[in-house]
Each structure stands twice: as structure tokens, then as C-alpha cells.
């Protein structure tokens, strides 16, 4: 009995000592491995898919009920949604011919100005699994990974071709994407319709800030459109980012506003990375 008590006490102290020993290791690792955290990410690449798989199995009855409720709700609203879509389609069809003319004129101008634009050869659709906006961080996970041909540095856009972010960490079945308002985001951009370039920086808030314009005389104003530029060699040029809300801020697309994205694969991927 006493032996049992002693051994359980000893086991408890050993476990506590192990937990205490891990703490300085964590602190050193966080300081040393910055910013890649290769070991931590590598571990997550193994553990996360396993936990997700187990979670899918265990929670299937709950998800089945949730899907049932969703199906009923969608079925109830399908008629009004159909009418709304018809109205939207009519509006789009009215603008269609204007757009076609603009596209052909744009192509002609690009040809005359000898502009060579990178164009994606493939796009992969992915669902946003988890975004950390609830903690006011600005990365999110998507449910496609190395198995689907994705890799770090690839561009993530919304279905209306707006830039959402870039992939920073890629597991076999998922990727972590850095959104535009993340504090580590710093990308080259261009004011649409001009030659003026600048840099877009995330600040962890809802709007990213823009500055360091190539023309020092340039005064930015509300309503200007901002697109990506390839001058820093990180992003392909010409992807729409957002509209300026004042002389310093750009209204960007945030991950909590969308549920599905497209990852673009480029022919000249090696050169822009």
C-alpha cells in the first residue's frame, strides 16, 4: 500500500518535472526558430490530419443533423434565391457586350505596349477550414495541400478574382494562408490606370495601409483601385486587391468574408517566387 503511494507520488513528480523541463525548451524554440517554425509546422502536418480524420468519424451524427437543418433551410429559400439570381443575370447580360469590347481593346493595348502578363494555367478550388479572425490574427487554413499540387508562395484569390493572400505553410492535405491584413504582409502594388507603385502593409486590423509610392508627388485619394505588381518578384501583376478608402488605407477582402477560394498556379511560378 505504502509502496503504491510512494510510486504514485514518484510518478507524479517525474511527470511534473518533465512538464517543467519542456517549458525552457519551448521558450528557446520560439526565439530561435522564428519565423519558420519548421519543427512545429512539421509536427502539425502529421497530427492535424490525423485529428481531423478522427474528428470527422466521431462527429458524423452531429454533422448529419447540421447538414439536414442546412438542407431544409436552403430548400425553403431556393425560390426567392432563384428570382434574385435571375435579376442579377439580367443585369450582367446587359453589361456583357460592353465588357467584351473592353477586353478586346485591353488585349490590343497590351499587345501594342508589349506588356507580358503572367497568366494562371490552373486554379484549384479550396474551402476555408478555420480562420483565426476570432483571435484577431490573420491567417487561415484551406483544405487543399501538397497532394493537390500546392506549395508555399502560391497566390490565393476569391471567386471574383480578388487577392486574398499567399500560402505560407503547406501540409499534405491543408495549407496555411497569410491574409493581406496580417502584420507580416508587405507586398508591391500598383495604382490601377497609372504607373505609380507602392507597398501594401498589413497591420492586423481590418484595413491594410499603403505607402512608399514611387512618385513622391502622388497624393492618394478615396476610390482609387489597387492591383498587385510584380516589381518585388513575389506576386504576379494585375490581380485586383481593393479600393482605397482614404489616402492611406485600402479596403481588402478578409478571410471571414468568404468561405471558398481559388489557388492560382502559374506557368512562370518559379520566377515570381
Amino acid at each position, binding site marked *: 500500500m505504502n509502496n503504491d503511494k510512494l510510486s504514485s507520488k514518484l510518478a507524479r513528480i517525474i511527470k*511534473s518535472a518533465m512538464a517543467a523541463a519542456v517549458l525552457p525548451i519551448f521558450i528557446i524554440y520560439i526565439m530561435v526558430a522564428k519565423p519558420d517554425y519548421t519543427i512545429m509546422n512539421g509536427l502539425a502536418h502529421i497530427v492535424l490530419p490525423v485529428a481531423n480524420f478522427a474528428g470527422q468519424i466521431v462527429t458524423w451524427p452531429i454533422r448529419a443533423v447540421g447538414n439536414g437543418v442546412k438542407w431544409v433551410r436552403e430548400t425553403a429559400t431556393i425560390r426567392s434565391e432563384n428570382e434574385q439570381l435571375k435579376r442579377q443575370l439580367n443585369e450582367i447580360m446587359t453589361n456583357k457586350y460592353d465588357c467584351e469590347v473592353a477586353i478586346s481593346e485591353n488585349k490590343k493595348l497590351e499587345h501594342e505596349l508589349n506588356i507580358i502578363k503572367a497568366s494562371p494555367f490552373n486554379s484549384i478550388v479550396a474551402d476555408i477550414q*478555420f480562420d483565426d479572425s476570432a483571435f484577431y490574427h490573420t491567417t487561415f487554413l484551406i483544405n487543399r495541400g501538397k497532394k493537390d499540387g500546392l506549395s508555399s508562395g502560391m497566390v490565393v484569390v476569391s471567386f471574383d478574382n480578388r487577392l486574398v493572400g499567399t500560402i505560407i505553410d503547406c501540409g499534405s492535405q491543408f495549407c496555411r494562408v497569410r491574409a493581406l491584413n496580417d502584420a507580416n504582409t508587405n507586398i508591391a502594388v500598383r495604382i490601377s490606370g497609372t504607373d505609380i507603385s507602392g507597398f501594401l502593409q498589413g497591420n492586423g486590423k481590418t484595413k491594410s495601409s499603403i505607402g512608399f509610392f514611387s512618385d513622391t508627388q502622388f497624393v492618394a485619394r478615396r476610390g482609387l483601385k489597387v492591383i498587385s505588381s510584380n516589381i518585388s518578384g513575389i506576386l504576379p501583376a494585375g490581380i485586383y486587391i481593393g479600393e482605397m478608402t482614404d489616402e492611406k488605407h485600402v479596403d481588402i477582402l478578409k478571410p471571414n468574408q468568404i468561405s471558398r477560394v481559388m489557388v492560382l498556379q502559374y506557368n512562370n511560378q518559379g520566377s515570381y517566387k
Partner: protein
Amino acid sequence: MYKLSLFFKQAFPFIITLILWYLAIPFWNPAGILALIPIFYYTFVKPTKFYSFFALIFCFLIDYRCNLLLLWTFLFCLFYAINGFQKYFDVSRMDNDAIHIFMLYIGIGLLVLTMGGFTFMNLVNNLWLFSWLAILYTPINAVNKWIEK
């Protein structure tokens, strides 16, 4: 049937943690943070065999999902070490399943998060999370106890 119910009872701590972690919803359960309730309960209040390592993994998974480096994992190890070394109080015998220790545990984590990127919205959000976790602690543990019986 008896064996099945016994297996379910033994597996329940692991299952409830997995469910609460997996069913993450941005506002109500961001990154599966509600899983911290069974993690705390089955590690400190009612220690369960082989659960500590499982809890450590899920703290790591919560951290990875919301890009928090190793915040909750670090706090878990810290509390585990302190609880193991001290003899002044026994968490497993405290009133109300040691809810005040649990509030201290999540309070420290959320305070670090608030100070890390201080904005008014961040403060409100973390206050909400603190209250929500503290409110759900008792009902979730009531379910745990009911299953144990």
C-alpha cells in the same frame, strides 16, 4: 452491452475533447477553444490515465489552428508542473470542480493574447471568450459526471 458502455465511459474524455475541438465555429468556439474545458477537467480535477499526453496534443492543435505559437501548450505544461510540485492545495478536491483555477488558467492565456495585440475589439472579444468558457465549464462538467455514472 456492459463492455460497450464501459468502453464508452473510458473513451468519453477523449471523445468529448475531440468533438469540442473539431466542431470549431468562429464566434462560439474559435479554433475549438472549448476543448480546454475537458482538457482542464480530466487533467487536473479528475486525472484520467493517458489523458495528459492527449491533452498536450490538443493544446498544440488549438495553438496551431489560431497561429498562437505554443501559448496554450506552454500554459498547460506550466500548470501541470506547478500542480505536480505543490502540496498546498488539491485541485481534485476543490469546490465547484476548481472553476476558479480554471478561470485563472484561461484568464492568463487570454490576457497574454489581449496584451499581444491590444485593440478595443480584441479586448471585448477576449472578455467574451473568458465569460463563455467560465459559463460553460459547469454544464459541460455536469455532462462529464453524468456519463461517468
